């Protein structure tokens, strides 16, 4: 049985193995050079005062990296679509299941052998690609922060392995349910992309309970991820402005949905009285020589002083919800485990379906 399963897949495996080997070879040939550039040019840019130029040049050398990142993101989907979906569907569609499932090998053993052999090959190929890519782009990752950025997070380290297992199992399951190759392939693609997107938007931010940091709202400081102790690799999930009763009245270090802070004079009757738009009337008086003000308009020091006094008067707080960089590996392990468990559950369901429900 193992021999028969291998016979059916060896050509495709060979093609993929060669493609993977070529890519790894490209990594192995270019990686040391990039690392050398990093060691000699990037690390010393501070002493030459040309960090900005060096960074942008360094980035342009990695224009291939984005392409390879997309490839690694796509590899699980392609394996699920081209290997997973036709695995059972093609046998049913072409009628060969009648022969295959009436041999001395029971249909459940037939299924499990094929699933584990092909699935394992998919997972191993994706794993090799992901680890090689992680190694190759390590210098880049040190220069450009943001390890939780989706395209970075989802192509590095462990999670691609989980994705490969999940996409493959999803393809097998949908193939057994739909029984026709091409529709099953399309459904696998849609299901995988939809599932991964939903996970990224709704599940991943809460894999571990995020940390909160609350500080008094400050107008004259750049908002995001610049507070004390914020690591550029932290993942800021939300930044809300709370009023004194704890209700959210704004975001991104400002008021309202746009995150702007606007101070406007109340009117002609009371010179020097300003309104903090969206919050209330300031208790203190403002200097008179300026009419209105938005953030970043380089106001006079007395004006800044008055605004800060006004903001303090409302006891607004800036609540940062974030995942610290130290959660990275926990996240990788959790996410990989979740997708592998999902894959096993799908395989279990397919096994039951093929045994009891199919034909």
């Amino acid at each position, binding site marked *: 049985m193992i021999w028969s399963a291998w016979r059916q897949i060896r050509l495709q495996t060979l093609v993929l193995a060669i493609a993977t080997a070529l890519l790894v070879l490209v990594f192995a040939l270019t990686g040391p050079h990039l690392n050398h*550039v990093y060691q000699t*040019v990037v690390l010393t840019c*501070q*002493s*030459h*005062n*040309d*960090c*900005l*130029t*060096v960074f942008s*040049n360094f980035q*342009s*050398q990695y224009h291939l990296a984005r392409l390879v990142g997309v490839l690694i993101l796509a590899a699980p989907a*392609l394996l699920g679509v*081209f290997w997973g979906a*036709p695995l059972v569907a*093609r046998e049913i569609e*072409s009628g060969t299941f009648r022969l295959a499932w009436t041999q001395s090998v029971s249909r459940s053993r037939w299924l499990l052998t094929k699933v584990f052999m092909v699935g394992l090959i998919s997972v191993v190929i994706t794993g090799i690609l992901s680890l090689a890519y992680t190694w190759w782009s390590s210098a880049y990752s040190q220069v450009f922060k943001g390890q939780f950025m989706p395209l970075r997070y989802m192509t590095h380290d462990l999670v691609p392995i989980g994705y490969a297992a999940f996409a493959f199992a999803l393809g097998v399951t949908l193939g057994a349910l739909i029984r026709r*190759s*091409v529709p099953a*392939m*399309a459904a696998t*693609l849609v299901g995988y992309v939809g599932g991964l997107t939903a996970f990224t*938007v709704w599940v991943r931010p809460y894999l571990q309970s995020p940390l909160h940091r609350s500080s008094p709202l400050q107008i004259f400081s750049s908002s995001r991820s610049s507070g004390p102790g914020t690591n550029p690799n932290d993942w800021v999930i939300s930044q809300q402005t709370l009023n004194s009763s704890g209700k959210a009245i704004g975001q*991104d270090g400002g008021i309202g949905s*746009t*995150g*702007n802070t606007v101070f406007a004079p109340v009117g002609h009757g009371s010179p020097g009285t300003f309104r903090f738009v969206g919050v209330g009337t300031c208790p203190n008086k403002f200097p008179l020589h300026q009419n209105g003000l*938005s*953030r*970043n*308009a*380089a106001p006079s020091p007395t004006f800044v002083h008055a605004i800060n006094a006004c903001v303090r008067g409302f006891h607004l707080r800036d609540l940062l919800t974030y995942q610290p960089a130290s959660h990275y590996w926990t996240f990788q392990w959790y996410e990989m485990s979740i997708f592998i468990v999902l894959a096993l559950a799908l395989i279990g369901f397919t096994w039951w379906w093929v045994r009891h429900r199919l034909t």
Partner: protein
Amino acid sequence: MIWLAWRQFRVQAYVALGLLGVMAIAFAITGPSIVHLYDTAVATCGTHGDCATVQNSFLDKDHFLQQLSVVVVVVPALLGIFWGAPLIAREMETGTFRLAWTQSVTRSRWIATKFCLVGLASMVTAGLLSLMVTWWSSPFDSLRDVPFSIFDHRDIAPIGYAAFAFALGAVLGILIRRVLPAMAATLVVFIAVRLAFTNWIRQRFATPLHITTPFQAPGPGFNGGNGLPGNPGDWVVSEETINSSGKVIGRYGGIGPNGEVNFRGNGSGVTYFQGVGKCPNRIPNPPAGSRSTSSQPSPAVQHAIQKCIDSFHLRSIATYQPTNRYWTFQWYELTIFLIMALLLSAFGWWWVRRRLA
């Protein structure tokens, strides 16, 4: 025949129509508020003096939907794989072509009808999708102003990609005669052709312009940005540094293949401009090995470095396509891909008539 072709195709057409509808609804809900926000906040930011903040928070808006413009790149490939490749290959694989091609409708008419119907449907799908994305993203695009970096997922080029991908899939299906291998081959060839156009061919549609400027030291404290053309929307194809005899000695606006600009002193003021030569003048406090990490070099050092650079008479040559060629390039790209699609279709038609058993 048209009725039969439509019957065989209608489920796929409904699926595509449904997905387009979902996207249209999402865009119709969010689009007007984006235009409104752009008109009220971004367009008027100059009078409030808060452009940096407003623009950044505007560009962060609807981040997820902005990423969705990737589908315009992906959809032509999917159309080629799922509509093109199985079109004929499935008939052959399952043997139904024996019945289909021996009816009163000749096989050449049969294949021409199918090609026209499904091919046109592919182009309409990609065209509508691109139209929606282009409309929805126009406030973001006009703010970012980098038309050539979003060239292949806006405006009319995706129509050509869809036609080409479909014809490629159908012809590979005819040649390979099996659905799955044909789908895989379509994907690989389509990606290869698209990459070739993006990286090598498109920049040669028209002779690029050149602009030559004296080489300047990059980085803070210096004027920065060598010979770049004035318009940020221009497509800079390459930026090379040449020495006084006209030889190319650097890329990326610097010296050497990595675009570095390094000075190395021996401590006594004698300084080497790496990759170029020894500076004729002395540079006080050579920047290499200087202790201060944050501050920019002192004016005296900047002046001395610029003087050293000037003495070598280096020049920067920027090769670029100006932003006003955008629509010419869009039409070129559309036309080329449509012609390739027509040639492929004609080949497929001929092959089915003359060669296929």
